[in-house]
């Protein structure tokens, strides 16, 4: 069976700075991998390479054997990627239900002509309601995003990503800015989604939660792949400790 995600020898440079240096990563279907590294390790840049927001100078990205490297972001999403962004970006003039329903209707929004011929939103709204219930937002489906706290909006990002029925869910620091109780609760949800069969790549600084829910971690430092494997073993490796804490 083909890996769900293959990142092959990706290099990204911004001017004279190499943000990602020959990074490679392979994920199998059903994996939940914590993607960690100190600040400036190039994690978000690599995530942006996977989603197509940043084009690599070298290397390629594959999803279930399909080369995504030359595809635009929206084409990668339709190929099976979904992204919950680090900085929450709800569509502020729409309710939570509409935010998720729009994503649920991705088959109707493939092009303007198809969208023009489609009117019924009831099926998508029903699915959106179910997804919002799944992430614990069933009581605020009709609320405006601007009136809700960050924890709710982080969950909205996850619900919207799930609405795309992805093969691989990319989560960019979903726990950032949440208190411990909210972070723990959202981490539990991520673990449950993985147990239901969804492949998830989780970029996160909250190592406590990453080690609690992720069986495997991929560590990157200064743009380079540093280690990959069992979470507890990897985090005890001297070079990983050195990357996080520096030399004594």
């Amino acid at each position, binding site marked *: 069976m083909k890996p769900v995600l293959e990142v092959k020898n990706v290099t990204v440079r911004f001017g004279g700075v190499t943000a990602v240096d020959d990074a490679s990563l392979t994920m199998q279907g059903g994996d939940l991998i914590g993607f960690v590294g100190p600040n400036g390790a190039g994690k978000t840049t690599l995530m942006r390479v996977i*989603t197509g927001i940043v084009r690599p100078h070298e290397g390629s990205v594959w999803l279930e054997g399909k080369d995504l490297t030359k595809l*635009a*972001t*929206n*084409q990668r*999403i*339709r190929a099976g990627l979904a*992204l919950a*962004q680090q900085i929450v*970006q*709800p*569509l*502020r*003039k*729409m309710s939570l239900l*509409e935010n998720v329903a*729009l*994503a649920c*209707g*991705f088959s*109707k*929004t*493939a*092009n*303007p002509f*198809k*969208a*023009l*011929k*489609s*009117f019924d*939103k009831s099926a998508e709204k029903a699915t959106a309601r179910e997804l919002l219930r799944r992430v614990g937002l069933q009581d605020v489906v009709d609320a405006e995003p601007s009136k809700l706290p960050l924890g709710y909006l982080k969950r909205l990002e996850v619900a*919207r990503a799930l609405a*795309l029925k992805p093969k691989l869910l990319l989560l960019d620091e979903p726990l950032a800015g949440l208190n411990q109780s909210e972070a723990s609760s959202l981490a539990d949800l991520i673990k449950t989604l993985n147990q239901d069969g969804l492949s998830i790549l989780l970029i996160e600084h909250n190592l406590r939660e990453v080690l609690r829910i992720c069986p495997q971690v991929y560590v990157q430092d200064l743009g380079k792949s540093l280690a990959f494997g069992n979470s507890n073993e990897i985090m005890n490796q001297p070079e990983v400790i050195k990357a996080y804490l520096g030399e004594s």
Partner: protein
Amino acid sequence: MAYEITLLTTMAISVLFALSLNFITGFCGQISLGHAAFMGVGAYTAATMMKASISLLFVIPVAAVFAGVLGLLVGFASLRVRHDFLAITTMGVVFLFVGVVRQQEFLGGEIGISGIQQSVLGRTGFMLLCVVLAGVFAGFSLLVKRSWLGFVFDSIADNEDVSQVLGIDVAKYKLFAFVVGTATAGTAGALYAQHYRFVGPDSFGFVESISVLAMVVVGGIGSVWGVMFAAAVLSVLPLLIQFVDDYKILVYSALLFSMMRFSPDGLAGIVQRLLNRVRNR
């Protein structure tokens, strides 16, 4: 009766023109400060063809296609620049259009094209054609608002980057909005040429672009009914009140400023708030 026919024809052409900008700016969130250029392309295309005794009914679709093609080109610019930069780019289009037309002898240069013959429809028939075309596009706009296309436009107007992450091909949708909006402006231009039987470069400059933007903003950006009402009233106001005619740009600019300051969602927003207040009593 002839006066009423003139008023109604003027209203219908303005409504069609304002709705065409509303499609781009109100629905899809793409600001355009040069929309009169597309009306101008349609008007000059139609004037040139009608001078060659080609039927108005054939001229209208050709004018729409010419304006739509230019709209497609400007739409490509919207894929690279956004917000204020797009506003400046579209403003450049209208100055470019006027500048080019002024230098073309076959388009009448500074003097424009006059002596366009009346169509076989007659004044009443032509008025009905204008009303029907404005009505059809208003109906199409309302249909779009109800459809998934309107839903996607709302998301693009709100946040293009998020729309991309939801799998939406933002470029295709923006180009679609530009082509439909500018082709409709071209249609309005063809009707204008027949209505006034004269086209000149000053009729499609920056002032006209701001005037139509004022209609959209005063009516309520994105609101079909609001824009129709504002376009109908503002288009005939200069014909009814001499002061407005004398100080047209001043009056329109004051209205534009007042709306942006006190009710950014226009008359439609005011009506909606009043209705909500009545319902909540």
